Structures are given as C-alpha cells and as structure tokens.
C-alpha cells in the first residue's frame, strides 16, 4: 500500500501541529516518524488514520494507492491502529477484543462464527498468546496487552498498520523484544507499517526509512544509515544519539576550532562567522602526548566502565565538557586515571554554520 501525503497542515487553536507536510510512503515499507514530543509525529499519524482531519486547503491530499481518502472516516480506510496505552476493551475477553473488528461488520460481510473463531485463534497463535483467549485485559502484562492490541488491529486485515508509540509504556527489555518481533511480523505479513516513536534507537533499528520531525516540520527523510551519518541539520545530529558540540569560527574559508581545522572548507562563508562543530563521542581519540597541531588539551573528570564502551568525561582548557567513548582495550592501554592531562583530537566532525545552512 503506497501512501502519499501532500501539503498537509494541522493546527489546534493557535498551536501548529503540522506545517505543510508532504511525504510518500512506499508499499511494504516500515517507516518511523521520529521526533520529540510536540513535533507533530502523532498528529501526522492520526491524519493518515483519519482520526484527525487536516486543515482545509485545496492543495492538501491524503492518497492511499492514488485514491484521495482525506474526507473518508477512519472506519472506511482499513487501517490497523495501535495506541500507546493499548486502548483494549476492558469488559471484553482477549478473544472478544480480537474478534471485535469482525463482529461489527455489516451482516452481509460478517464472517460465520466458526470463521471468526479460526481467525482469532490464528492471531492468538501469531502473538504467542494461545490459551489466553478467555483472559481479560486486566489479567495481562503490558507487553501482552500490546500484543493483543496488535492482533485486534490485524484482525480486520488492514492495508496499513499504524502504531502510535506502541512500546512507550513498556520497560526497556520487553520493548527491545517486541521491537524485533514487530520487524519480523512486518516482513511476514508484508504490510505497510508506520511507527511513531520518540526513541531514536528504536527508529534506527527497525525501520526501512526514518522521518525525523521537529516543530511541525519534517527535518529529514532517509534510511537509518543516512540520517545517522549524513544528518541534514543540527537538530537531526543532536536528536540521533549523543554528540559533543563545539563552538568554532570560520577562518579563511575553513571552520576552525581553537587552532584545529575541522570539516571541509566553506569558501563562500566570510571569516568570523560562528561555526557549530558536532563530534560523536566515538569519533574522538585520546592521546597521552600532543599529536602535532590538531589536538586539544583536556583533563579527565569521570570514567564510566559500565557498558560495551568506556565513557570518559573530559574538561577542555575552555572549561567545556566533552564526552568520549573508547573501547575497553584502549582504556587499558592508556592507563587513564581521574585528573590525568591528555590530548583529544576529533577524527570526524560535522560543521554547521547557522546563518548559512538554514
């Protein structure tokens, strides 16, 4: 199912939730809408579902396979919607929850009781909750409830699956398991899936493409690889994982940080412009001795060994705090102690000159 959104805006009173959004989602794709709260990602999902109608505008369209559904109500769009807080029907058993979408069909399209039973049992099987049909939502754990909500949405054989922060209310371990399971389910069912999340790790891990949203706009659309390594804006690099920010200046067309030249040349930019230099913690190396001109002196303030990498906090001579990730082997070799004076050197940096990149 390919979905195309054209020039969609949505405001609630004076608050703008979506500002002229256009996006094309390919058939069979798992795409994430990623952004902080208030960025408009949930509103966009609800507009696609038909739970929210976009601001009236002759140019705006929501196309499902080329057909404009912007004025169709949610029930007619054949979308499977999964809510963050499950929204299960508390007074119904798990079985009845899943069967609901089949039971409410008009009589002429309603499957026979035996067909409903078969369908529900195959879905219970799919979500690995066979034998839970007679339980009630109150008797299930959070992860189980969310799987029931997913099965309920799948029962109507939706053309597209819309998930609104489906794992947001679950603890980290359950979340990770469900995330992997969702990915394999998506591949197995061959649906188009749109996942709203504020968890960058989740988005980068499961999606084919990520849509990074901020302040009612789309900042960047791309494969997880691209948005991580080729961030289009300061917002994107900052939102996708930890990053150190240095404030440098442009000198002779080159962004310069203290006395180190970073990034490519920016010849068109006049001297003295502010340059924001972003370096990921694992793109910085630490040395005991200065390596020529290109390193900065720093003092070790904290060493955290809990994790795959050691996380080192350092203070530069400018009193700025930075964070560096080094492997455990490197940490051994360097014999780092608190208070040690070392030299740091950015290997890879991304530079944004605010007035010239926007």
């Amino acid at each position, binding site marked *: 199912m390919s979905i195309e959104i054209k020039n969609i805006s949505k405001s609630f009173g004076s608050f703008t939730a979506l500002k002229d959004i256009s996006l094309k989602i390919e058939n069979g794709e798992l795409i994430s809408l990623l952004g902080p709260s208030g960025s408009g990602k949930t509103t966009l999902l609800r507009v696609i*579902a038909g*739970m929210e109608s976009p601001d009236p505008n002759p140019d705006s369209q929501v196309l499902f396979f080329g057909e404009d559904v912007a004025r169709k*109500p*949610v*029930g007619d769009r054949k*979308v*499977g*919607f999964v*809510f963050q*807080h499950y*929204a*299960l*029907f*508390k*007074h*119904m058993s798990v079985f009845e929850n899943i069967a*609901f*979408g089949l039971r*409410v*069909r008009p009589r002429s399209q309603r499957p026979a009781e035996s067909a409903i039973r078969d369908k529900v049992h195959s879905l219970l099987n799919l979500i690995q909750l066979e034998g839970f049909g007679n*339980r*009630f*939502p*109150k*008797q299930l754990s959070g992860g189980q409830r969310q799987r029931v*909500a997913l099965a*309920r*949405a799948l*029962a*109507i054989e939706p053309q597209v699956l819309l998930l609104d922060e489906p794992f947001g209310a679950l603890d980290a371990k359950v979340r990770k398991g469900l995330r992997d399971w969702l990915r394999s389910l998506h591949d197995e069912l061959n649906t188009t899936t749109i996942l709203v999340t504020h968890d960058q790790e989740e988005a980068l891990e499961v999606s084919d493409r990520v849509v990074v949203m901020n302040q009612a706009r789309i900042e960047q659309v791309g494969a997880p690889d691209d948005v991580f390594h080729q961030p289009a804006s300061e917002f994107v690099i900052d939102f996708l994982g930890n990053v150190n920010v240095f404030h440098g200046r442009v000198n002779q067309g080159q962004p310069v940080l203290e006395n180190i030249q970073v990034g490519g040349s920016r010849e068109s930019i006049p001297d003295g412009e502010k340059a924001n230099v972003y370096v990921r913690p694992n793109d910085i190396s630490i040395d005991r001795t200065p390596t020529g001109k290109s390193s900065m002196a720093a003092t070790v303030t904290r060493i955290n060994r809990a994790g795959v990498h050691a996380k080192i906090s350092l203070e530069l001579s400018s009193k700025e705090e930075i964070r560096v990730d080094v492997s455990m082997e490197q940490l051994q070799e360097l014999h780092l102690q608190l208070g040690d004076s070392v030299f740091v050197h950015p290997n890879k940096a991304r530079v944004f000159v605010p007035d010239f990149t926007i």
Partner: protein
Amino acid sequence: MLEKQGKFMSNNARSKAMLPGFRLTMGYTLLYLSLIVLIPLSALFLKAATMDWNDFYETITSRRVVAAYRLTFGASLIAALINTVFGALVAWSIVRYRFPGRQLLDAIIDLPFAMPTAVSGIALMAIYAPTGLIGKHLLPYGIKTAISPLGIVIALTFIGLPFVVRTLQPALEELDGEAEQAAASLGANRWQTFWRIIVPSLMPSLLTGFTLAFARALGEYGSVIFVAGNIPMKTEIASLLIISKLDDADVPGAAAIAVVMLSVTFLILLVVQGIQWWSQRMTGRA
C-alpha cells in the same frame, strides 16, 4: 541508593499493612455500624414482633397496605430508570463537553440533594398542580401531573437525579475516548460503539447510580406527600401509611409495614450487589 530504599519499603509493606491497627479499626467499624444502623433496625423488628403473627399478616396484606407497597416500589423503580437514562445523558454532557455555564450546571445538579424535601414538594406543587405552570397546560390533555402516580414519579425523579449523575461522572472521566477511537478504527459505527463499548464500560456505575436513586426514592416522604394527594388505594405511599399508623398510636402496625419495606429493600440491594460482584468477576476486575 534510592532503588534500594524503595525495595526495602515494598518488602516491608508486603509483610505488614501500611497503617497499623486493623483490629482497632475493625472493632470501631462494627461498634459504629451497630450503634447507628443495626440496633435501631433491630428495635424495629422487636417492635413488630410484639404483634402476634395473625395481626402482623393481616396488617401487611391489607389491600390498602399492598396498594401502597405496589405504588412505592413501582414509582421508585420507574423514577430510578428514568434517572439512569437521563442522568447518564446529563453526566455525559458535563464530562465530555466544554461550554459556557458548565460549572453552574454542575452545581445545580446537587440542589435536589441540598434542599429540604418539603421545600422540593412545595416547589414541584407550584409547577405541576392543576393550576401550576406546567400542570395547567397538561390537564386539558388528560394528563394529571399532581395528585396522581405520575406526580409521585416526577417527585421521585427530581430527588434521585444527583445520585446517578454523581456516580457516573468519575466513570465517564475515566472513559478517555481512546477505546471509542479504537472501535471506530476497527469499523464500528457510532451505534455499535455506543452499545458494545460505552454502555458496558459504564454498566457498573450505571447499576450503582440506579441502586442509589432507587433506594432514595423508596424512603422519600417529604416531597411526595405534597404532590401525591395521598388518596388511599391510589396515591398513598408506604411511608405515609407508616406515619398515619403512628398518628393513630398504632406503633406495632407502623413497625410491621416498615419491616416489610426494609426486608424487600435489603433484598433488592443484595441482588444488585450480587450482580455487580458477578459482572466484575466476569471481566476479571474483582
């Protein structure tokens, strides 16, 4: 450090109740209930027991008394049912919509609670009497809104309204609309969403509200006697019969009527409680 503390506390909570003194509070509860409810009620039974069985049976099965029982229970039931439907609508509008004057409307709901019932009776009479504002327009169509069972139902509906609204409000606030949206996304139309999602979710509160309104209506005296007209066999409620027996210094007779009222009421409350318990068991909420 914090986590450790948290764990320690929860362990402690499991082995011991949060507050001490289960025995003390339970003893107090029993004593209090006895003093306020059980002892006066048993006095009622004792008073009724001073009659011999034949007198007792004759009193409670006399045609006038049976007619009064029928009227009291019938009118209370109808009033409680009306309140359950229309009170639910009122609660719905107050919880779901934001409109000017909502707070005022919310406060008005409590008026039947707060007014002396005799005042309510006089107020209702001013409107529904044959010469009253509404009564005089309905009389030409043969609808008697006072000195009739209809008048009694109106009075009982009036005093029972707050019970349904106040019971339903919290339940409606909890019904946050997501379940309805989920139903809609699964293809349910509004009618199906209403009957299959909203009504069952509210059922426990509807039942409680109904029971409270019903129980209140059974015991109502002040407002009803004004609009009822108190014609024996026609518009005489049980409470009034009890009072008139007392006026005749027939205390055991009054007690006999009261004992039957009390027993039937208690039975009804017990059945409703049982339905509640059963439905909660059925949906895993107990």
